[in-house]
């Protein structure tokens, strides 16, 4: 049984400048991992590498034991993403509905949890799952609030029932109430869909609540790979303390 995601000895350089060096970890089914670190530590780059948006200089990324990305048509069904600025991840000329349906229309998957019989049924189920009113789907992205558009992004990510979702700072910029709602939503989704999450964030409470493991990056290197945030090195401890209000 392969882990859902395997990162082995990952290195990424730009013109001999090392951005990430020798990163290794894996994510088993239904487990979630958090990635924390200072700005410039390489967190976002790691996220982009895992998503296959960048090519590593050395090292390997595999999904379910198969190297990723390899160009197979449906390999991207297993992995989805939610970005930091959700509004920018939606085409401003498309309705929210059209954007949410993009992965579904591409893969036409057979779904276990959501109804895939028709797009309308799917949208209704997704609206319920993320706690959004369906009528918002017919609006343009800029007409939704920050919390709403983030939930729409999550709806899009779960619509094809991926095995793993990479989230880059999903709670940053959200007000207190929306943030709490997103955290609860993700907890629920972890339980009902059994999806693994890779959470890149400097919101320590967020990571603590959702992740069974945490990778701590510093200047592109892995400083810690721990399950309890309290059991890290001195650097990690300082970092965690600073982020806990």
């Amino acid at each position: 049984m392969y882990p859902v995601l395997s990162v082995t000895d990952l290195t990424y350089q730009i013109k001999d400048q090392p951005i990430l060096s020798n990163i290794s970890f894996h994510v088993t089914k239904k487990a979630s991992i958090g990635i924390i670190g200072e700005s410039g530590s390489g967190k976002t780059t790691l996220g982009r590498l895992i998503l296959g948006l960048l090519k590593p200089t050395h090292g390997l990324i595999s999904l379910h034991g198969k190297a990723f990305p390899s160009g197979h048509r449906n390999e991207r069904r297993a992995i989805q993403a939610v970005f930091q600025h959700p509004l920018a991840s939606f085409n401003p000329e498309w309705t929210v509905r059209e954007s949410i349906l993009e992965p579904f229309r591409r893969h036409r998957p057979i779904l276990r949890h959501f109804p895939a019989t028709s797009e309308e049924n799917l949208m209704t189920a997704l609206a319920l799952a993320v706690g959004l009113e369906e009528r918002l789907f017919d609006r343009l992205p800029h007409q939704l609030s920050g919390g709403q558009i983030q939930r729409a992004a999550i709806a899009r990510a779960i619509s094809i029932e991926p095995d793993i979702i990479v989230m880059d700072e999903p709670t940053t910029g959200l007000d207190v109430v929306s943030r709490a709602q997103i955290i609860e939503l993700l907890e629920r989704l972890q339980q009902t869909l059994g999806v693994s999450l890779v959470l890149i964030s400097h919101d320590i409470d967020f990571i603590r609540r959702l992740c069974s493991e945490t990778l701590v990056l510093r200047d592109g290197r892995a400083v810690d790979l721990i399950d309890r945030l309290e059991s890290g090195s001195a650097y990690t401890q300082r970092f965690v303390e600073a982020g806990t209000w």
Partner: protein
Amino acid sequence: MKKRWLIFGGCLLFFISYTVFTNSFNTNIAKRLEPASFEHWLGTDGLGRDFAARLFLAGLISLGFSLLTVLLTACIGTCLGCLAGFYDGRLKHLIHRLEDGLVIFPDTVLALVIAGLFGASPQSLIFAILLIKWISYARLSETLVTETMQKPYISMARINGLTDSMILRRHILPPIIRQVVVLMSLDVGKVILFLSAFSYIGLGVQAPLPEWGTMLNEGRPYFSSAPRLMLLPGACIVLTVVATMGWTRWMKKKGGHVNDSDSEHTRSGETRPSA
């Protein structure tokens, strides 16, 4: 709204049939410079030809010429611009050098030179206009391509499994096409003006084909006796150009400005992308 189009279509049909059924080229020296009559609705010109038919035919020729030119220029310019936007490296540099090299030429001078080299004809004119105008389309599309490619929703589309051609078709081309069409409608007016100016001095459409600029020139000697021979073609040029400007304004309004950068949420917490 529909009624307006019906009237417009009806007039067009009328003008075209008049032009088709009336000969614009039969000269009749005996009947030259006649005022408006039942036989010739706007009279005859200096060579006895039906003036109205020549006017309408000239309109069709101007429009046809300009649409063809603008379409050709837009296609070539947009293609080159998109290529420059997508592919970094030698192709991009080549296109930029071409742009830099040609943009310095004032269009009038270039048209004169080309007419001198290849002979005065509509084709030379098209070639000259093409050489100059493709650059604005190329730069527009290159900018749009580069800007759009950086948007997160393009990365998202890739994550969703879309192939490059799908992304091109669905995300990148629509805004480009919208803006290119607006540019095209503006250029149609400019090209008509350009064509008229050159035909006036004899370097565009050649006799005996009618063209408003040519007709302006033909009407010059008779200005005191039959001013309509100059005034009407002139008025046609002005009205057509104004019409294209109005058309452009309407299209800009209809296309609307996409509101994608006003939301507070794209601004809060925006930093340089961290490595």
